[in-house]
């Protein structure tokens, strides 16, 4: 199903054929699930957020002007819904950096032995990043995830989040400083001895 098929389906839905929305869900739900899993951990929460995204998309379908692909419109909606979720659940989240798994501890220890990346440790690294991201405010988590993990530009983030370019830059700067602070705390709390890394 390409963009023109998406447009036809959307037109059908808007004309009252609700069943035409189902193929759109089936097509985009893997991408939406992958995106939501960047911001939420519990599977029941993830399913609820994805459901909320598609219901919002259905209700707001008339506002889709077709200037950009439907996927872009849907993903923007998905990211903003995730941001709403983070803000709603901000106070319920408490992560303890001192309780690392063996794999995460091993990753940090390996890093101190050799600072070269090893692809075999990707999952542990990802878990460590998620642990650190959980310590950040919702806006900082959004900026770091979009910029550092998804590789989006400042302009793209501004468009997705509806923020100004300067706001994105300020938030990115502050978020990196916060992240550095939490990383230092993580290293302080975990049993690994930290030595300054030789950069030459």
């Amino acid at each position, binding site marked *: 199903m390409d963009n023109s098929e998406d447009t036809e389906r959307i037109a059908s839905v808007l004309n009252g054929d609700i069943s035409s929305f*189902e193929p759109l869900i089936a097509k985009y*739900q893997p991408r939406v699930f992958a995106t939501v899993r960047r911001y939420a951990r519990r599977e029941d929460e993830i399913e609820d957020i994805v459901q909320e995204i598609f219901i919002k998309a259905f209700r707001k379908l008339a506002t889709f002007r077709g200037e950009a692909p439907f996927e872009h419109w849907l993903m923007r909606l998905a990211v903003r819904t995730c941001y709403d979720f983070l803000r709603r659940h901000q106070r319920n989240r408490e992560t303890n950096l001192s309780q690392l798994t063996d794999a995460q501890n091993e990753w940090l220890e390996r890093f101190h032995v050799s600072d070269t990346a090893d692809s075999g440790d990707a999952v542990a690294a990802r878990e460590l990043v998620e642990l650190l991201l959980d310590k950040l405010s919702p806006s900082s988590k959004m900026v770091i995830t979009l910029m550092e993990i998804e590789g989006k530009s400042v302009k793209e983030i501004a468009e997705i989040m509806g923020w100004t370019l300067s706001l994105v830059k300020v938030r990115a700067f502050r978020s990196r400083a916060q992240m550095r602070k939490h990383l230092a705390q993580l290293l302080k709390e975990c049993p690994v001895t930290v030595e300054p890394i030789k950069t030459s």
Partner: protein
Amino acid sequence: MNTDKLWNKLVDEVRKTPSGHSVPHDFEKRIMDRLNSTDAHAKSGDSSKIRSLDLLWSNLVNLARQATPNDRVPFAFEKRIMACIDVPLEVVDGLTLWSRAT
């Protein structure tokens, strides 16, 4: 006598003071060297720590990018969403509510 000459004269007088109160010849220079080196050491320690954290963070992120999030979808998830959407938005007026109640 200009101010420089006055200052030099004062310093000479201070150096001539009795033993135990004399100022070593290069005292000021030694103090300034010590202060500069301490400051430089502190700054290099901070920047080294920040570099170390930045390097650790960039390695973490580079690896985390490789572990793409799971895009698994629960069985028939689209049906679940369609079930929510399919429910017609019922227009309920006061009369209907009253008739249901009776």
